[in-house]
Protein backbone atom coordinates (compact mmCIF):
# COMPACT_ATOMS: atom_id res chain seq x y z
CA UNK A 1 0.00 0.00 0.00
CA UNK A 2 1.49 3.29 -1.07
CA UNK A 3 1.04 6.43 1.01
CA UNK A 4 -1.53 8.73 -0.60
CA UNK A 5 -2.60 12.23 0.34
CA UNK A 6 -5.84 13.75 -0.95
CA UNK A 7 -6.54 17.41 -0.21
CA UNK A 8 -10.05 18.65 -0.84
CA UNK A 9 -12.80 20.39 1.06
CA UNK A 10 -14.98 18.07 3.17
CA UNK A 11 -18.05 20.21 2.47
CA UNK A 12 -19.22 22.56 -0.26
CA UNK A 13 -22.26 24.40 -1.56
CA UNK A 14 -24.16 22.79 -4.41
CA UNK A 15 -22.76 23.94 -7.73
CA UNK A 16 -19.50 25.16 -6.19
CA UNK A 17 -16.32 24.24 -8.11
CA UNK A 18 -13.87 22.57 -5.73
CA UNK A 19 -10.18 21.85 -6.21
CA UNK A 20 -8.86 18.37 -5.49
CA UNK A 21 -5.17 17.61 -5.04
CA UNK A 22 -3.97 14.02 -5.18
CA UNK A 23 -0.44 12.93 -4.23
CA UNK A 24 0.75 9.33 -4.05
CA UNK A 25 4.12 7.72 -3.25
CA UNK A 26 5.44 5.79 -6.26
CA UNK A 27 8.90 5.68 -7.90
CA UNK A 28 7.51 5.96 -11.45
CA UNK A 29 10.54 4.03 -12.75
CA UNK A 30 10.82 5.14 -16.37
CA UNK A 31 12.32 2.04 -17.93
CA UNK A 32 15.21 4.15 -19.28
CA UNK A 33 17.40 4.41 -16.18
CA UNK A 34 20.46 2.15 -15.73
CA UNK A 35 21.21 0.57 -12.34
CA UNK A 36 24.66 0.61 -10.68
CA UNK A 37 25.79 -2.19 -13.03
CA UNK A 38 24.58 -0.45 -16.17
CA UNK A 39 21.58 -2.72 -16.61
CA UNK A 40 18.36 -0.89 -17.50
CA UNK A 41 15.83 -0.91 -14.65
CA UNK A 42 12.47 -2.19 -15.92
CA UNK A 43 9.58 0.23 -16.26
CA UNK A 44 7.31 0.42 -13.23
CA UNK A 45 4.85 3.26 -13.36
CA UNK A 46 1.32 4.24 -12.45
CA UNK A 47 -0.51 4.30 -15.79
CA UNK A 48 -3.91 5.68 -14.86
CA UNK A 49 -5.63 7.83 -12.28
CA UNK A 50 -9.41 8.10 -12.10
CA UNK A 51 -11.71 10.12 -9.85
CA UNK A 52 -15.28 8.86 -9.46
CA UNK A 53 -17.94 10.93 -7.79
CA UNK A 54 -20.72 8.66 -6.46
CA UNK A 55 -19.63 6.10 -9.02
CA UNK A 56 -19.43 8.38 -12.05
CA UNK A 57 -16.03 9.31 -13.51
CA UNK A 58 -15.48 13.06 -13.31
CA UNK A 59 -11.78 13.13 -14.10
CA UNK A 60 -9.16 10.81 -15.50
CA UNK A 61 -5.48 10.83 -16.36
CA UNK A 62 -3.29 8.57 -18.48
CA UNK A 63 0.26 8.76 -17.10
CA UNK A 64 3.48 8.12 -19.04
CA UNK A 65 7.06 7.72 -17.72
CA UNK A 66 7.55 11.48 -18.13
CA UNK A 67 5.34 12.05 -15.08
CA UNK A 68 7.48 12.73 -11.99
CA UNK A 69 8.02 10.26 -9.17
CA UNK A 70 5.42 10.51 -6.40
CA UNK A 71 2.88 11.81 -8.91
CA UNK A 72 0.86 14.89 -8.05
CA UNK A 73 -2.28 15.91 -9.91
CA UNK A 74 -4.55 18.84 -9.07
CA UNK A 75 -7.91 19.21 -10.82
CA UNK A 76 -11.42 20.55 -10.31
CA UNK A 77 -14.93 19.18 -10.07
CA UNK A 78 -18.38 20.61 -9.43
CA UNK A 79 -19.87 19.74 -6.01
CA UNK A 80 -23.15 18.27 -7.21
CA UNK A 81 -24.37 16.20 -4.23
CA UNK A 82 -23.24 14.66 -0.97
CA UNK A 83 -21.50 11.34 -1.21
CA UNK A 84 -18.14 9.73 -1.82
CA UNK A 85 -15.26 10.58 -4.08
CA UNK A 86 -13.18 7.58 -5.05
CA UNK A 87 -9.62 7.94 -6.31
CA UNK A 88 -8.02 4.98 -8.07
CA UNK A 89 -4.48 4.61 -9.28
CA UNK A 90 -3.58 1.61 -11.50
CA UNK A 91 -0.22 0.69 -12.91
CA UNK A 92 2.49 -1.81 -13.82
CA UNK A 93 3.10 -5.00 -11.83
CA UNK A 94 -0.52 -5.11 -10.70
CA UNK A 95 -0.36 -1.83 -8.82
CA UNK A 96 -3.84 -0.74 -7.80
CA UNK A 97 -4.91 1.54 -5.00
CA UNK A 98 -8.13 3.32 -4.11
CA UNK A 99 -8.69 6.08 -1.58
CA UNK A 100 -12.11 7.44 -0.68
CA UNK A 101 -13.12 10.79 0.75
CA UNK A 102 -16.63 11.79 1.81
CA UNK A 103 -18.12 15.13 0.85
CA UNK A 104 -21.17 16.92 2.25
CA UNK A 105 -22.93 19.20 -0.23
CA UNK A 106 -25.51 21.63 1.07
CA UNK A 107 -28.00 23.96 -0.59
Amino acid at each position, binding site marked *: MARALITMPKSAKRGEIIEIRALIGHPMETGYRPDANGKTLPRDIIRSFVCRYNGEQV*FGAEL*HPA*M*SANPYIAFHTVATESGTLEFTWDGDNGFSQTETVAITVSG
Partner: protein
Amino acid sequence: MNLRRRKLLAIAAALVVARPALATTAEMKAAIAAFAGGAEPRAGRVTLDVAKLVDNGNAVPITVSVDSPMTALDHVVAIAVFNERNPNTDVVKFALGPRAGKAVVATRIRMATSQKLVAVARMNDGCAWSATADVIVTLAACVEGDG
Protein backbone atom coordinates in the same frame (compact mmCIF):
# COMPACT_ATOMS: atom_id res chain seq x y z
CA MET B 1 31.74 6.05 -54.00
CA ASN B 2 32.27 2.28 -54.32
CA LEU B 3 29.59 -0.21 -53.17
CA ARG B 4 31.59 -1.52 -50.18
CA ARG B 5 32.13 1.97 -48.76
CA ARG B 6 28.44 2.76 -49.28
CA LYS B 7 27.48 -0.39 -47.35
CA LEU B 8 29.84 0.52 -44.48
CA LEU B 9 28.41 4.03 -44.27
CA ALA B 10 24.89 2.65 -44.27
CA ILE B 11 25.74 0.30 -41.40
CA ALA B 12 27.44 3.14 -39.52
CA ALA B 13 24.41 5.35 -40.04
CA ALA B 14 22.09 2.58 -38.85
CA LEU B 15 24.21 2.11 -35.71
CA VAL B 16 24.05 5.83 -34.93
CA VAL B 17 20.27 5.84 -35.33
CA ALA B 18 19.91 2.67 -33.23
CA ARG B 19 21.06 4.44 -30.00
CA PRO B 20 18.31 4.92 -27.39
CA ALA B 21 16.05 7.15 -29.41
CA LEU B 22 14.95 10.54 -28.19
CA ALA B 23 11.62 11.93 -29.27
CA THR B 24 11.97 14.16 -32.31
CA THR B 25 10.09 17.24 -33.35
CA ALA B 26 8.46 15.12 -36.06
CA GLU B 27 7.28 12.51 -33.53
CA MET B 28 5.89 15.24 -31.31
CA LYS B 29 4.05 16.82 -34.24
CA ALA B 30 2.59 13.43 -35.21
CA ALA B 31 1.45 12.73 -31.64
CA ILE B 32 -0.16 16.18 -31.42
CA ALA B 33 -1.97 15.68 -34.71
CA ALA B 34 -3.22 12.24 -33.67
CA PHE B 35 -4.55 13.62 -30.36
CA ALA B 36 -6.13 16.62 -32.08
CA GLY B 37 -8.01 14.30 -34.44
CA GLY B 38 -5.96 14.75 -37.54
CA ALA B 39 -6.05 18.54 -37.70
CA GLU B 40 -3.35 20.95 -36.56
CA PRO B 41 -4.48 22.62 -33.33
CA ARG B 42 -4.82 26.39 -33.29
CA ALA B 43 -2.74 28.45 -30.88
CA GLY B 44 -4.92 30.08 -28.24
CA ARG B 45 -7.37 29.46 -25.38
CA VAL B 46 -4.77 27.29 -23.68
CA THR B 47 -2.25 28.59 -21.17
CA LEU B 48 0.76 26.44 -20.27
CA ASP B 49 2.30 27.73 -17.04
CA VAL B 50 5.84 26.50 -16.46
CA ALA B 51 9.04 28.15 -15.21
CA LYS B 52 11.40 29.27 -17.97
CA LEU B 53 14.35 27.94 -16.03
CA VAL B 54 13.71 24.91 -13.84
CA ASP B 55 15.69 23.85 -10.75
CA ASN B 56 15.68 20.17 -11.65
CA GLY B 57 14.36 18.18 -14.60
CA ASN B 58 13.04 15.40 -12.35
CA ALA B 59 10.06 17.42 -11.13
CA VAL B 60 8.92 20.36 -13.24
CA PRO B 61 5.61 21.83 -12.02
CA ILE B 62 3.22 22.73 -14.84
CA THR B 63 -0.33 24.09 -14.92
CA VAL B 64 -2.53 23.89 -17.99
CA SER B 65 -5.57 26.18 -18.09
CA VAL B 66 -8.12 26.28 -20.89
CA ASP B 67 -10.47 29.18 -21.46
CA SER B 68 -13.80 27.31 -21.61
CA PRO B 69 -17.22 27.72 -19.94
CA MET B 70 -17.23 23.94 -19.28
CA THR B 71 -20.95 23.65 -19.97
CA ALA B 72 -22.63 20.60 -21.48
CA LEU B 73 -22.62 22.34 -24.85
CA ASP B 74 -19.12 23.82 -24.73
CA HIS B 75 -16.39 22.08 -22.80
CA VAL B 76 -12.93 20.57 -22.88
CA VAL B 77 -12.97 16.83 -23.45
CA ALA B 78 -9.26 16.16 -23.02
CA ILE B 79 -5.94 17.88 -22.39
CA ALA B 80 -2.63 16.33 -23.43
CA VAL B 81 0.95 17.40 -22.82
CA PHE B 82 3.77 16.52 -25.21
CA ASN B 83 7.53 17.08 -25.14
CA GLU B 84 10.18 17.25 -27.82
CA ARG B 85 13.30 15.62 -26.38
CA ASN B 86 12.46 12.98 -23.76
CA PRO B 87 12.74 9.33 -24.95
CA ASN B 88 8.96 9.42 -25.40
CA THR B 89 6.91 12.38 -26.60
CA ASP B 90 3.85 11.61 -24.42
CA VAL B 91 3.72 13.05 -20.93
CA VAL B 92 0.13 12.84 -19.74
CA LYS B 93 -3.46 12.91 -21.05
CA PHE B 94 -6.29 14.21 -18.91
CA ALA B 95 -9.96 13.37 -19.49
CA LEU B 96 -12.34 16.15 -18.49
CA GLY B 97 -15.97 17.03 -19.12
CA PRO B 98 -18.65 19.47 -17.98
CA ARG B 99 -18.48 18.06 -14.43
CA ALA B 100 -14.96 19.52 -14.11
CA GLY B 101 -16.33 23.02 -13.70
CA LYS B 102 -12.95 24.50 -14.58
CA ALA B 103 -10.45 23.27 -17.15
CA VAL B 104 -7.36 23.82 -14.97
CA VAL B 105 -4.99 20.94 -14.24
CA ALA B 106 -1.63 21.00 -12.46
CA THR B 107 1.01 18.31 -12.17
CA ARG B 108 4.78 17.70 -12.10
CA ILE B 109 6.63 16.23 -15.05
CA ARG B 110 10.09 15.03 -16.02
CA MET B 111 12.18 16.81 -18.59
CA ALA B 112 15.39 15.14 -19.76
CA THR B 113 16.86 18.32 -21.17
CA SER B 114 15.99 21.84 -22.28
CA GLN B 115 13.15 21.54 -24.79
CA LYS B 116 9.71 22.57 -25.97
CA LEU B 117 6.53 21.50 -24.19
CA VAL B 118 3.17 21.58 -25.93
CA ALA B 119 -0.24 21.41 -24.22
CA VAL B 120 -3.21 20.58 -26.44
CA ALA B 121 -6.89 20.81 -25.52
CA ARG B 122 -9.56 18.97 -27.48
CA MET B 123 -13.06 20.41 -27.27
CA ASN B 124 -16.40 18.66 -27.58
CA ASP B 125 -16.95 20.36 -30.95
CA GLY B 126 -13.87 18.61 -32.30
CA CYS B 127 -11.67 21.69 -32.34
CA ALA B 128 -8.20 21.57 -30.84
CA TRP B 129 -6.25 24.43 -29.27
CA SER B 130 -2.65 24.50 -28.05
CA ALA B 131 0.03 26.42 -26.18
CA THR B 132 3.81 25.98 -26.32
CA ALA B 133 6.53 26.70 -23.80
CA ASP B 134 10.31 26.64 -24.12
CA VAL B 135 11.92 25.40 -20.91
CA ILE B 136 15.57 25.44 -19.89
CA VAL B 137 16.64 22.52 -17.71
CA THR B 138 19.88 22.66 -15.73
CA LEU B 139 21.56 19.52 -14.48
CA ALA B 140 22.83 18.93 -10.93
CA ALA B 141 26.47 19.95 -10.53
CA CYS B 142 27.66 17.16 -8.24
CA VAL B 143 26.82 13.56 -9.02
CA GLU B 144 26.08 11.24 -6.09
CA GLY B 145 28.55 8.38 -5.61
CA ASP B 146 27.65 4.79 -4.83
CA GLY B 147 26.61 3.94 -1.26
